[in-house]
């Protein structure tokens, strides 16, 4: 049984996230782009901004990976991250791995928000090459949903902290086949 206090805390976090999003998300977000969708997720290795350990995308083979491009200067990015933290906790055991990719010009500001938002998944810094590998990140937030076989299933331009994205994520998590990445 969940403790009432724990449940209350969770509800408050949900309410905050929903509230921030009601204010922060214009309905005009373009939500899709064909760039890189249905092809293998380009592999990369970048150092974690928290402990400098190398983070290899390929190391997450067999998991559903949510790549989230964000930056400390992007209000809608910061507003959606608490929901990503919840998803990482909720679906970790089912094989979800979220990976944050900061578009900040330096890691200092990004690191500050990693701590402020208690981000519970690895965060690395982007660079022009990595951005171009993913079709160009010319506005934020942008996220990619990668299935267990390493294929990009969706690109989201705009905020993703909604039930529709969660349903897509859960659908991919239920696909148990873990084909090796190409």
């Amino acid at each position, binding site marked *: 049984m969940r403790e009432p206090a724990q449940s209350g805390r969770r509800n408050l976090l949900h309410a*905050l996230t929903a509230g921030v999003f009601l204010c922060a998300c214009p309905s005009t977000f*373009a939500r899709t782009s064909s760039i890189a969708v249905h092809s293998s997720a380009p592999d990369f290795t970048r150092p974690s901004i928290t402990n400098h350990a190398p983070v290899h995308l390929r190391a997450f083979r067999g998991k559903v990976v949510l790549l989230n491009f964000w930056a400390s*200067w992007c*209000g809608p990015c*910061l507003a959606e991250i608490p929901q990503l933290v919840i998803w990482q906790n909720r679906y970790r055991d089912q094989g979800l791995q979220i990976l944050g990719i900061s*578009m900040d010009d330096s890691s200092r500001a990004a690191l500050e928000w990693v701590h402020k938002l208690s981000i519970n998944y690895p965060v690395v810094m982007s660079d*022009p090459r990595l951005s171009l590998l993913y079709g160009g990140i010319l506005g934020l937030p942008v996220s990619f949903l990668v299935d267990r076989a390493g294929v990009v299933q969706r690109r989201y331009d705009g905020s993703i902290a909604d039930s529709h994205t969660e349903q897509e994520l859960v659908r991919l998590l239920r696909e148990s086949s873990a084909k090796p990445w190409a």
Partner: protein
Amino acid sequence: MPTQNTRRNFLLHAPVALGAIALALDTSRLLAESATTIPSSALLEPGFVNAQLQRSHAAPWKILQVGFHSMFDQKHIRGAIYAGPASQPDGLALLRQTVSSWPRTQAILLYCGCCPWTHCPNIAPAWDQLQSMHFSAVKVLRIENNFGADWAAKGYPVA
């Protein structure tokens, strides 16, 4: 006891609530100086700007990107000058330095496009900066979603 429960609940939830409020305020700091403060008479739509760039041999404005280097490095409007993120002191300093020797009647077009228009942290500070320096012919490119969706994806000129 109901009173004890109420006190216990308050003690448990108050720190979380205060933390949540602090986070919301911190986040709203980024939304505080909104692009919506720029007068509509100064705003130009991407389609119009693209048409002007196609029509004239030389761009009718000096075009300044006042966003982040990580964006500019990938793609920017052809001919644009990187002038730094105006939401940050270093960025504002670079903007001042870039325009300092220009005549105050110089036609200038500012753009950013890092984020949706109402959440862009850079465009309003850049506008304010040029106003305070008495530039009289400043226009602003109104980018609704982001530079990728509203400019690059439409095939408008980039470098």
